[in-house]
Structure formats: structure tokens, C-alpha cells
């Protein structure tokens, strides 16, 4: 039995030792969509922080009575 198994394994085509494209082929559109959303979220939030940033109080102190 062991001999038969060994012979079968030797006869079977070997898998490429290098990692191939995977069982799921393609799917780059999902990858680009994901990275696009990430970039948009980070950039838009950075802009929102910029627009909401506290203004300097220096001009205010000059107007104090």
C-alpha cells in the first residue's frame, strides 16, 4: 500500500514550488476599489481636520480691551 501511494505521488505532476496566481483568479477590481476607498477616507478626513483646525488666538488678544 505504501509502495503504491509512493508510486502514485511520484507519477503525479508536481505542484510548482512557487506560489501561483491562487485559486481565485483576477479580482483586481476589488483590490483597486478597496485601496481607492482607503485613500479617499484618509484624504477627506485630513481635509476635514484642516478646515476645522483651531484658529490662532494671537489676533484676538490684540483686540482685548
Amino acid at each position, binding site marked *: 500500500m505504501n509502495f503504491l501511494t509512493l508510486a502514485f505521488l511520484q507519477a503525479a505532476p508536481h505542484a510548482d514550488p512557487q*506560489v*501561483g*496566481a*491562487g*485559486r*481565485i*483568479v*483576477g*479580482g*483586481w477590481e*476589488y*483590490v483597486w*476599489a*478597496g*485601496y481607492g*476607498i*482607503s485613500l479617499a*477616507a*484618509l484624504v477627506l*478626513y*485630513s481635509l476635514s*481636520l484642516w478646515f*476645522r*483646525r*483651531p*484658529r*490662532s488666538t494671537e*489676533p*484676538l488678544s*490684540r*483686540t*482685548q*480691551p
Partner: protein
Amino acid sequence: MSKAIRIGLPLLGAVTVLSGWYWGLFVAPPDREMGDVQRLMYAHVPAVWMALICSTLNFGSSLTYLFNGKSSADALAEASAEVGLLFGVYGVMLGAIWGKPTWGVYWTWDPRLTSAAVMLVAYMGYMALRKFVDDPEKRARWSAIVGILAFADIPIVWFSVRWWKSLHQIQSSPRTVDPELVLPLRWNSFGLFFVMLAFLVFRYAIARSRIREESAPPEVLSHQRVGLASTGTHR
């Protein structure tokens, strides 16, 4: 805020994240099972990790506020909730996008996905509460309580894949993942951590500024408004 933090931290985060994305998209090998779709991991996993870190920070600062009543703790709680919500929302969106080619659906009421959705709803409620309560002391106290309650979901999010049968895989470790995939994941995680720190620093400054405005006497504020109008710096 020092120049090193104001400019250096966002720059460090941006450079690390962009180089990490390049590594994950074009240099790292595709996964044996998922192929190129697995490249979403380098954006999805760090985003959700940052959301969990922010939730923990919100829990700690909410607890601190209830003990010492300092406005700095309240400001940090506000900043960490908002930044965590940002990472949570887009992290979950990326998870849904990854789900379509691997599970066949964008969304399913699986334990991990459901607990993550509860987390988002809880922190949206937290932010809504902060928006609609005018009294600063009541707002800080009530939101601290809500922050502590919302944090109860975080261990459920983390352990859901171990406690129940889930479509989502259990947490990987460097022992179970090829180093060629682990290294870009770590790089991206550190990059997004720097971005998260920068966001927290800037958002904390906004929260502190608003608290100062709220606690200033009315006559000072009216003078400030006149000053802002006259100097042309009013938003």
C-alpha cells in the same frame, strides 16, 4: 504643538502608508488560495486594528474623565471616538469588498461582521450624543458612560471568530503566515499607526479649542467675535 509633530508625524505616516501600499500591491506575492484579492489585507487589517486601538483609548479616557473630571480626558475621548469611527467604517467597508470574491457576498450576519456593525452603530450613537447635548459637563459625563458601554462590544468583536462558527477566519500569527506577507502587513500597520496618531493629535487640538471656547466668559467671546470679524479670520 511643535513643528515636528505638526508636520513630521503626518509626513512619516503618509510616506510609510504609501510605500506599504506599493509593497502590498506590487511587490508581495499573491496568496496561495485567494490570489491577488488577498492584497486587500494590507489596507483592511491595519484599519480595523486602528479602530480597536482608538476604542480602547476612548474607553480609558472615558473612565479617566469619570474619575477626575478633567476636560483633557473628555477631549481625548471625543478625538479617539471620531478617529476610531473613521478607521472602523472604512475597515468594515474593505472587509465587505473582500468578502464578495472570497465568500460570494458583500455582507452576511456572521458573528464577526455583526459585532463589527454593532461597534460602528455604538460609536455613531456616541458621536451623535456629543453633538446634541449642549451642556459641556452633561455631555462629557453622559458620553463617558456611553463610551464605557460601547467598549463592551470590543472583546466580542475580537473573540467572535473563536467563540462562534464564523465565515471570517480566526486571527493569524506570524507563525501561520508566510514572512513575505507578514512584513508588508507590519509595515502598513506601523504606517497607519503614525497616521492615526497624527489624526488624534489634530482632532484633540480641535476638541480642546472648543472646550476652551465653551468655558470662556461670554464677554470674552463677544470680544473675540469682534476681533475675528475685524481681522478677517472668521470662518
